[in-house]
């Protein structure tokens, strides 16, 4: 796949106090063939990672608004700056919420319309493969990954929803049932450059036959690693 000289790509996984799926995200990176690097919320230094995952959980308890407090942590300052320079960033669930609160992605996530936490296996349709995190998926491909959230309803003002649609910024959509009242069945979106993706479902929980409903989530991680290892992007 890549020359033996190439080091494996280093993917940072941030731990905020209250992060829960950080270990799982790191495991997914490892299974995908990358090297996970744990990043601490108070540490501005990104330790030279090639990409970053903001994992699921309840950062700082998420009592105010999901992701609202994490957005002001030192590590986020560096990640926001990095994202501006093209650093691939994936926000999963709470990570997605942090990305919205950071204004790296538009819109917001609000309490599920049925007002319960929901954990279930969810079918998604891939709507955009032009991102660092979905380039190895197929357009229109249907994948099965867990969702688990209490505040997963994606919302934005009508104009934003419209341009997300017309500009192809919707990356994943819920199919066979919307688990949380997300507008337009939106499960994941991207920024303009395609390096930043936020998604409510949990690809890191679908990387092993033994523990997940499928291994469909693995491709999200191999996508970014593949991109990083493409010769043009390997840092000398």
């Amino acid at each position, binding site marked *: 796949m890549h020359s033996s000289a190439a080091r494996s790509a280093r993917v940072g996984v941030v731990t905020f106090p209250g992060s829960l799926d950080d270990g799982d995200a790191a495991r997914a990176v490892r299974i995908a063939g990358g090297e996970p690097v744990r990043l601490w919320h108070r540490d501005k230094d990104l330790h030279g990672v090639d990409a970053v995952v903001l994992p699921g959980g309840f950062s700082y*308890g998420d009592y*105010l608004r999901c992701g609202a407090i994490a957005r002001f942590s030192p590590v986020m300052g560096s990640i926001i700056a990095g994202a501006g320079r093209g650093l691939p960033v994936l926000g999963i669930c709470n990570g997605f919420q942090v990305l919205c609160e950071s204004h790296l992605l538009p819109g917001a996530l609000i309490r599920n319309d049925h007002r319960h936490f929901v954990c279930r296996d969810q079918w998604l349709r891939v709507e955009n493969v032009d991102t660092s995190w979905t380039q190895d998926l197929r357009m229109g491909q249907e994948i099965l990954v867990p969702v688990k959230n209490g505040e997963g309803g994606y919302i934005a003002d009508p104009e934003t929803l419209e341009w997300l649609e017309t500009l192809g910024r919707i990356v994943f959509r819920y199919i066979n049932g919307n688990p949380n009242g997300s507008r337009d069945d939106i499960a994941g979106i991207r920024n303009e450059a395609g390096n930043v993706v936020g998604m409510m479902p949990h690809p890191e929980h679908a990387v092993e036959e033994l523990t997940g409903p499928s291994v469909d989530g693995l491709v999200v991680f191999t996508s970014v690693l593949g991109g990083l290892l493409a010769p043009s992007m390997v840092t000398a």
Partner: protein
Amino acid sequence: MSTPAERSEARVTSRVVVDVMPKPEILDPQGQAIQKALGRMGFAAVSAVRQGKRFEVEIDGEVDAAALAQVEQMAETLLANTVIEEFVVRVEQ
């Protein structure tokens, strides 16, 4: 259904506000989390924060004593959990 934005419509609706706050003696993890965050962000003068809920209830017709009593009852039974929260009902000026 009318939304607050439409309250100038012909039909008369009135707005009653229900403020629900954690009882002072009850632990308020939300408030504590916010206070700490504000501290980290440099807002040093804040000595305490409490987070509660605010409901805006639109009622058909004028707010009379009967209507207020109804809202009191909604607050008591649904909007607030009186084991750990207290509430205030008031008509928006």
